[in-house]
């Protein structure tokens, strides 16, 4: 028994080390004073951060990624919450079809979704000249995760709560706002956070759908790495990790991430 527990502890620890170590190394490497991206670092310096923040392409890419993630999460909220409500409470005969279609972007390889969207954009004439296609693409891949979060939150609350509200005189909108929404709030917030992170990290959709002359942070890191192997990219990654972490902490502070149980 004791041995088993030790073994389990060791296994868990090694998984964490395996997952976290590369991230730690990137963060450490970003403070390297040497000219190359390597570990262990040769000394402490903030020059790569200066390089990163001083670089117009990096700044543009970071801004675009951030705005893209916020917009994608916001638009996905407006689509995924009603979709989940429809699926859980109202969908009839086409219920499963509806679910499969909503989850399709998750089930298909992302690159296929990207290619399909690209063809579609050219067919309908919006192409990739504007950023619209990029935004839509990000929304599309954010929806499935969001939908799943809200769906499971809805399954946890009894439909008779909404009916009780209706019987007490609330319209369907009021009963959603006063009863359903507060109860699924943790699911909605998690969904939005998921959406933000997925969009912020995304490569394959952005690769195909970004307009000419614009680029997202992950793409910019990739492009940069092809020509320069200096720690600027490590600094960029560290900033990106900090932003994701920042989003999680901010949301936690504002509304609390712990599943609210009643």
């Amino acid at each position, binding site marked *: 028994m004791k041995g088993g527990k030790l073994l389990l502890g060791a296994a868990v620890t090694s998984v964490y080390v395996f997952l976290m170590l590369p991230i730690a190394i990137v963060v450490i490497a970003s403070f390297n004073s040497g000219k190359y991206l390597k570990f262990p670092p040769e000394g402490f310096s903030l020059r790569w951060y200066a390089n990163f923040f001083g670089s117009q392409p990096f700044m543009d890419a970071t801004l675009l990624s951030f705005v893209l993630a916020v917009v994608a999460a916001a638009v996905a909220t407006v689509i995924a919450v009603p979709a989940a409500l429809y699926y859980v409470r109202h969908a009839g005969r086409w219920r499963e079809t509806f679910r499969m279609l909503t989850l399709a972007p998750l089930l298909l390889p992302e690159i296929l979704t990207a290619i399909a969207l690209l063809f579609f954009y050219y067919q309908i004439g919006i192409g990739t000249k504007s950023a619209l296609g990029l935004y839509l693409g990000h929304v599309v891949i954010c929806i499935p995760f969001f939908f799943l979060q809200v769906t499971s939150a809805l399954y946890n609350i009894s439909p008779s709560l909404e*009916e009780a*509200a*209706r*019987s007490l005189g609330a319209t*369907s909108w009021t009963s959603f706002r006063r009863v359903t929404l507060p109860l699924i709030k943790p699911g909605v917030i998690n969904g939005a956070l998921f959406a933000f992170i997925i969009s912020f990290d995304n490569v394959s959709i952005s690769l195909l759908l970004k307009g000419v002359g614009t680029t997202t942070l992950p793409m910019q890191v990739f492009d940069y790495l092809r020509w320069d192997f200096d720690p600027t990219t490590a600094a960029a990654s560290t900033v990106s990790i900090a932003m994701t972490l920042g989003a999680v902490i901010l949301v936690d502070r504002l509304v609390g991430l712990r599943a609210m149980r009643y």
Partner: protein
Amino acid sequence: MTKLKLDGLQKHYGTVAAVKGIDLDVAEGELVSLLGPSGCGKTTTLRCVAGFELPTGGRITFDGNEVTMLPPERRDIGMVFQNYALFPHMTVRENLRFGLEMRKVDAASMERRVADVLGMVQLTSMETRYPRQLSGGQQQRVALARALVIEPKLLLLDEPLANLDAKLRDEMRFFIRSLQKRVGITTLYVTHDQAEAMVMSDRIVVMFDGLIHQVGGARDIYDRPATRQVASFIGLSNFVTGRVAGRDGSLWRLETSFGTISCGAGIAPGAGSPATAMVRPEAIDLSAAPVAGAFPGRVSERFFLGNLVDYRITMSDGTLLQVQQPATAAFAPGDEVHATLPAERAWLVRDDAA
């Protein structure tokens, strides 16, 4: 106070007919139970009245005003759900205020009404608790209070006691009934528990398979069931089949294979037609000596039930009758007995199986 009227109410789900056309009048301040086995359409009927389901046929009126297609929030009903459906993120007080807020009641009357109703259900000290901090019985009372505080036209309850233990269920029956009488609200009450329906209701509606078989008081339904299903659903019964031999005033003569019995009827069968009579086990009298109008039989089994003894009597033609007698009467298996089936306790029922 409100009169409720259902006219040919129907509800089909695709090809499934849950309610097949029912007519019902509920008078002002009356408590009517919908009673019947699982799946007979009680909940569906109640949900149509509440507005959660739209009927596929028929009309629903409150005080003569048609509400058939109105959404629930415009019907002014109070509903109590089997799982109580209290809002878990609101305190008892907030739960009770919800309906009043929807009605834009002013703050002062809101306070007063919430306090009044909490007093009625004896939960004044629980005002600031969340539902999860209450026992099942307390949650039940909050649910009742929340439905009553809005002073609705109708109170609808769907098996509100099904989740409580037996003792609490007994207490709550009386509690709900006396509260309903005090408030004087017209009430529709769904249950599949016959004892509950008999204790609580002014009238009982017995349903089978989407149709009403009988509407009446507890006595009517027990002593004068309309159909064989009603009789077997409520209490114990013997069914004796035979042919209608004729009529003496209000009684019918039924020729059975162990003899001719007299019985009352709510139907008018033609002479010579097959018919089924129902006799309750406790209505049959047993005696050792032959009595005028009694039929001979033999005790084949005997079970002691405490206050009663339960006999199986085999009649001359092999018909088996269940008879319950006070525990003071003593017959042993094998004894010759004479069974009297009193005309006033025998009743012809509609028997679709026959």
